[in-house]
């Protein structure tokens, strides 16, 4: 198709901006080299020149998804997300849609990270829940649509991690309200955790908070009902204190 005719050609018309005759292929190679060596700004420039000069070809398709990766590494999450969304709209049947979904999940997963994370690792659990849910859904789409993609195993692992951390941050809020003596708020938060985050380790913490909060609110019946659930599901954890 037309991509093959993409040989180097000289632009003589004087009205057009001065165009070096670099072909799409060499632009793509240069962009990839920059990206590999960490010069993400350079990589982005090459990819976007390619897109401007040779739009709508196979090379432009590659350039677009790889510029998204470069933006992600260059700590510009929002532009990366826009580029990925534009990519899936422009090339719905591209061979790399699974990578696009995976990359989209990664951008939201690592949002807010900075070089200092190596020096002072940032605790992951209590960060913005909305982005984590978005990442969770991107990875989920990847697993349902491209179960056999080579990114699927890592996505599955990250989904598990996300599910647990979402449950954990919900339970942490319940504990926070116990510490402050807002027992009704703690009770309702614990209830929410149990309802929305089954199967995560946070369930046990939530059940404990529910018991202590019910006792503090002098609702012995609610406390004993919840205690029975703990005995059923976590027989070895029935002894715990209520000081938070």
């Amino acid at each position, binding site marked *: *198709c*037309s*991509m093959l005719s993409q040989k180097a*050609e000289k*632009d*003589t*018309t004087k*009205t*057009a*901006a001065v165009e070096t005759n670099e072909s799409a292929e060499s632009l793509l190679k240069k962009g990839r080299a920059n990206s590999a060596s960490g010069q993400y700004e350079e990589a982005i420039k090459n990819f*976007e020149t390619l*897109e*401007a*000069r040779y*739009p*709508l*070809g*196979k090379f*432009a398709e590659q350039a677009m998804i790889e510029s998204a990766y470069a933006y992600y590494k260059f700590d510009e999450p929002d532009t990366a997300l826009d580029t990925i969304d534009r990519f899936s709209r422009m*090339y*719905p*049947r591209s061979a790399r849609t699974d990578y696009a979904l995976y990359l989209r999940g990664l951008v939201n997963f690592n*949002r*807010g990270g*900075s070089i*200092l994370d190596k020096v*002072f*690792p*940032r*605790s992951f*659990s*209590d*960060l*913005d*829940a*909305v*982005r984590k849910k978005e990442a969770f859904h991107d990875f989920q789409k990847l697993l349902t649509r491209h179960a056999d993609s080579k990114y699927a195993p890592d996505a599955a692992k990250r989904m598990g991690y996300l599910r647990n951390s979402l449950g954990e*941050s919900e339970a*942490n*809020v319940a504990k*926070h*309200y116990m*510490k*402050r003596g*807002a027992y*009704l*708020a703690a*009770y*309702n*938060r614990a209830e*929410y955790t149990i309802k929305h985050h089954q199967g995560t380790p946070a369930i046990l913490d939530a059940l404990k908070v529910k018991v202590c909060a019910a006792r503090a609110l002098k609702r012995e019946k609610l406390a004993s009902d919840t205690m029975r659930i703990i005995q059923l599901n976590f027989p070895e954890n029935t002894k715990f204190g209520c000081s938070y």
Partner: protein
Amino acid sequence: DSFVLQDIQVNGLSRISAGTVLSNVPVRVGQTFDDRMTGDIVKSLYGTGLFEDVALSRRGNILIVKVQERLAIGSLDIEGNKTIETKVLTDALRGGGIAPGRPLDKAALAQFEKELQKQYVARGNYTAKVSSKVTPLKDGRAGVKIDIQEGTTAKIRNVKITGNKAFPEAVLQKLLESGPKSKLAVWSSKDEYSKAKLRGDLDNLSSFYRDRGFLRFEVVSSQVSLSDDKRFVNVNINVKEGDQYRVGTVNVTGTKSLAIQKMVSVKQGQVFSQSKLRETQKNFSSEMGKYGYAFAKVNVVPRFDEINKKVDLTFDLKQGQRTYVRRINVRGNYRTKDVVFRREMRQLESSFYSKESVENSRRRIQRLSFVESVKIQTSPVAGTTDQVDLDVTVVEQSSNQFTAGVGYSQSAGVLFNLGLSQNNFMGTGKQLSVAGAKSESESSFNLSYNNPYYTESGIGRGFKVYYDETDATDDDTSDYLSDKYGASVNFSFPLGEDDSLRFSLGAEQRSIETTDSSPDEVTEFIDANGNDYTQLISTLSYVKDTRDRTVFPSEGQRHSIGIELGIPGSDLEYYKLKYTGSAYFPISENVTSVFKGGVSYGDGFGDDDLPFFENFYSGGIRTVRGFEQSSLGPDDSSGDAAGGNLSVNATAEIRFPVPMLSDVKGLKASVFVDAGNVFDDEFDADEVRYSAGVGLTWVSPLGPLSLSYAKPLNAEDDDDVQELQFSVGANF
């Protein structure tokens, strides 16, 4: 008639791949095809935005899709725009799908042209012209050129008000923001016509009259008429004043509580005033807001008595249902733990919604130094009439300052330093700072850690460990060598929403060596007290802080008054009283006036004096700019500045964004006047030094940098003047 589709042929393609076209044709080979589907195919192909024209035809059982590709935009340039930045235009264009690399949609371009022209006219540029030219380039691409003639904003030639009896036209003209410019107001844009400004003026007029009893005042008509060449504008406003009304009887229905009744600021017999009425309504809703009635409403039922021009007012208070907060969600915290913000919230979950505590919470979060901005919005909970969720959306500001490398400071020569200060350490809100520095006159190391929430209710606790070796010989203060090391623990106890008590206790070991150039004061002191001292230092201070944020506050104040004691058991017993205060007043949206001041006094117990190394110094970028660092005040016997045990300084400043660089974050320019000095025991007014100048402060990712150029106003000849000064890590 329908038929089974044998094949789909696409022609007219030059750059787009057949695959892309086929993926957008909602029909597959082998399906039965009938005429109804043609509509969907054409719609979906146009939907891709890639094609100028799409035509379907049939040859036997083969569907032929004939497309004409849109030219892709090769280059896009914009000329002639002065008052709207090119970046704003390119973003708008990209929003409309017009950007290099994208297919050129001529309709969108024409739409953009019309829209931009409308924009200019709406801003009062009635002579503006916007046109665009598309020149085809090689290989299916097009060059787009947008040419803009902005013209000027129409100037108001005159404003005529008719129908006014109670107030002369001159009084009314002063109320208006739009009007002809007086000769000397060269900079003002008062004569630039804008619809919004005129509407604002009409509101000002009616509230002016309604505040003076003219309840039936109305603007009958307002005309704006353009000159023939569309460069000038006349404004004619015709008003009908109506009569002046006084307040008749006032009664409140809907609530029994007397406290609420007292809230009414409208009294019988007074001339009716709309602003007083609004004030009463505001008092009501804020009072009710405190008790969870967030949606309380007050409607005022006026009853006119036309004969003797009175109006009886009934305030009907509708409490509405009490509203409860179900869940509070924290958003945008990518680096900080949820609990660090949640613990600042005064509004709790499963508790009634109180406007006051939500506003309080917003202010407390805004004051955290690692928060750039915070918004709290309520959204109703589906299925309930009285429950809402709160969304706290935070924009974080990188608060870790990582300084390393070589620096030059005027007072200490070449400076090597390495330091990291983080007041949101690992997203926990704790503060940790580690810093080491080495230069000819000083080498120091200090580590400090503070946890503002050591206890749940906000009692803070922190430690500090420091080692400091100074050789004060070459800067112009008294010469001696001193090295000290020590550690201290500090606590802070909240006394209310805005004030707290701070206490610290520490031990310090210091030893002093004299040099041959040490002045008599130093040598006498050493002879009297020896070279080494162990000190037990404790400080106690009360701080009241109502500033709206710590970085570049725009309103509020901070006052701190405290005492530092060399408590008994130390070798040298002394005390230092210290007051520092700052107040911020917003002038306009991002212009703030700042007033700062400080008084410190120190003395030894009994008849001995304050140790010389504890003296206060003045001069330099943090006290009185324009004078060399610590150079002010009395001199010691060898002519260096000895400092003093009484220090006074004050600053008045106006801060505004740097005009051309207003989008650089955290950059502010300022115009200031400094005053201050240090004294030996007695304050002497004519010894106070003054200076004025301009300054620039930038809160860079590496920490606050400030630069100032100041002219001393009453420098004595032996003062060391230094107009240009800069520093890293100055407080602001």
